[in-house]
């Protein structure tokens, strides 16, 4: 099953993914429409840039088994057997924050949404853009990411890639005078030097 893969070392903290996410989860599904909506759509992933100079795109990992599902007292959280995602049903969510207590990654936000009955505040998190997936498109955050910090693919493939990159890095370090840090694009390493 495909999922959004995060490479925090590539993230520059530009927030484009947050904007794209909010737009995707608006009623209008476009930026101009979203800006004028009565209930402002909220992004479902967080970045922690700023003071610490360490941007980290933090979003739901769609764990299996999901700790949030086990503690949900409203029966609002379920696993999608086909997509492999952990989904929150806004019609059942009671905004009790039990899931925030259980999520080891702190990815939940509580805010009003047009998708909930009476536009109540409910728990919001990544749903991996089901409408886009149905249309064969990439999740909004992946489409918006310009530096390859967010990609869409199989976790196993990403693990194989990462393992290979690590093996190459180790190998390269045995070679005389390893030149560059592997896996880091030149633009990013230059940017890191600037800051």
């Amino acid at each position, binding site marked *: 099953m495909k999922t959004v893969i995060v490479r925090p070392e590539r993230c520059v903290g530009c927030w484009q993914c947050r904007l794209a996410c909010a737009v995707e989860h608006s009623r209008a599904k476009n930026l101009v429409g979203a800006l004028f909506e009565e209930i402002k759509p909220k992004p479902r992933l967080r970045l922690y840039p700023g003071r610490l100079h360490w941007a980290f795109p933090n979003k739901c990992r769609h764990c299996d088994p999901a700790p949030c599902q086990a503690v949900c007292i409203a029966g609002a959280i379920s696993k999608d057997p086909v997509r492999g995602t952990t989904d929150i049903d806004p019609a059942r969510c009671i905004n009790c924050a039990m899931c925030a207590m259980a999520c080891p990654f*702190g990815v939940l*936000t509580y805010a009003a949404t047009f998708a909930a009955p009476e536009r109540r505040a409910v728990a919001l998190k990544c749903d991996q853009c089901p409408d886009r997936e149905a249309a064969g498109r990439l999740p909004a955050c992946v489409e918006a990411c310009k530096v390859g910090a967010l990609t869409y693919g199989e976790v196993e493939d990403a693990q194989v890639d990462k393992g290979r990159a690590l093996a190459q890095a180790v190998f390269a370090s045995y070679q005389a005078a390893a030149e560059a840090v592997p896996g880091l694009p030149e633009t990013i390493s230059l940017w890191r030097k600037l800051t």
Partner: protein
Amino acid sequence: MRYVIIGTSAAGLAAAETIRQRDRQGGITLISDEPHLPYSRPLLTYLLGREVDAEKIFLKSHDYFDRWGFEPRLGAPVLKVKPESREVHLEGGETVLYDKLLIASGASPRLLGIPGEDLAGVYTLRNLADVENLEKGLPPGGSVAIVGAGAVGLKAAEALIRRGNRVTLLEAESRPLPHLLDQTAAGLLHQVLTSLGVESHFGVRPVGLMEKKGRLNGLLLDNDNTVTADAVIIAVGVRPRNEFLAGTGLDRPEGIPVSPFMETGHRHIFAAGDCACAPHFLTGEPAAYRIWPAAVAQGEIAGANMTGAGRRYDGILPRNSISLKGVKIIAGGLLEPDGKDGEVFNELDRSRGHYRRLVFQNGCLVGVTLAGPKAADAGIYFQIMARKVPVKDLPVDIRSAAFHPGKLWA
């Protein structure tokens, strides 16, 4: 293999589903004294406050038992368990035989033991039937006294305000949620209660219930004051439901003693959830904390071990999340450090309603309280607590105001 489970709430269902995932053939019988499909008890106060519709409290669909291959015995209270002959006797004369038995019978509300508790107008709030009774008996707009400012009492107060009742909250301790919150967090909660319009009195306990024409009309307090009320809800905690185990040695008042494998002293009998007395995650002492996440975790472990998995339960990490009028407070672990190596860190921003309190002992995080918008990060602190790692070994100082989790995983 014949598996029998007494109780169809959080622990019972978690166990049943775990057994089925590991044993496709075995017969699984689920016994409950309630006639309804499995429902969520924590949602009852939301049902009372008409925040959720009646059908939303049910956690499973009508075909749930068939789909999972469970044999339900609903509306059948257990009279007796006989460990020697491996029998469960149900009301109505039926006897169910078991190879492995799980007791997940839960708990029932404690009463105060004061005169007048049998009057019309005195309620508890634990079962769906209790909400039905309240719906019938509550006079619209009438005044209601709630005894006990625990999670049930607080949510019931919010629900009754939504219904247009006048609410008086009485608590014997000096603050709401006294076992979970410190003075400051409890103060924030008290502010929310006041803004809801709840009149709360702390440090008082009722000593008698007054009657007028066979109905309750008020409470007499230990400071000689009286509170008039058309109804009273007693929410002073629960006691484990293990009366039907009389004669087996498992009917202890604090709960059924269990090993870290969720086994009782009897071979083939396991216990999980509110009726069991499992160890505290941090102190290792048997602890009577009755929370939904612990019930699910214990049910999963008991279920797996009934099929021979040999999984160990780490213990209950006491924690709870209370959300009143949209204000969230999440707290857990130890409230105070014990011993001289303890340290408490506080961070309060009243204008933003933000409060963060961390309790350290021997260099490890052992307690956390979060209120306000940052309460959503609570799981990260609980994860640090569960790992039991010294905080100085973490790549980032969790005390710092700029603490963010990115550095933990980088």
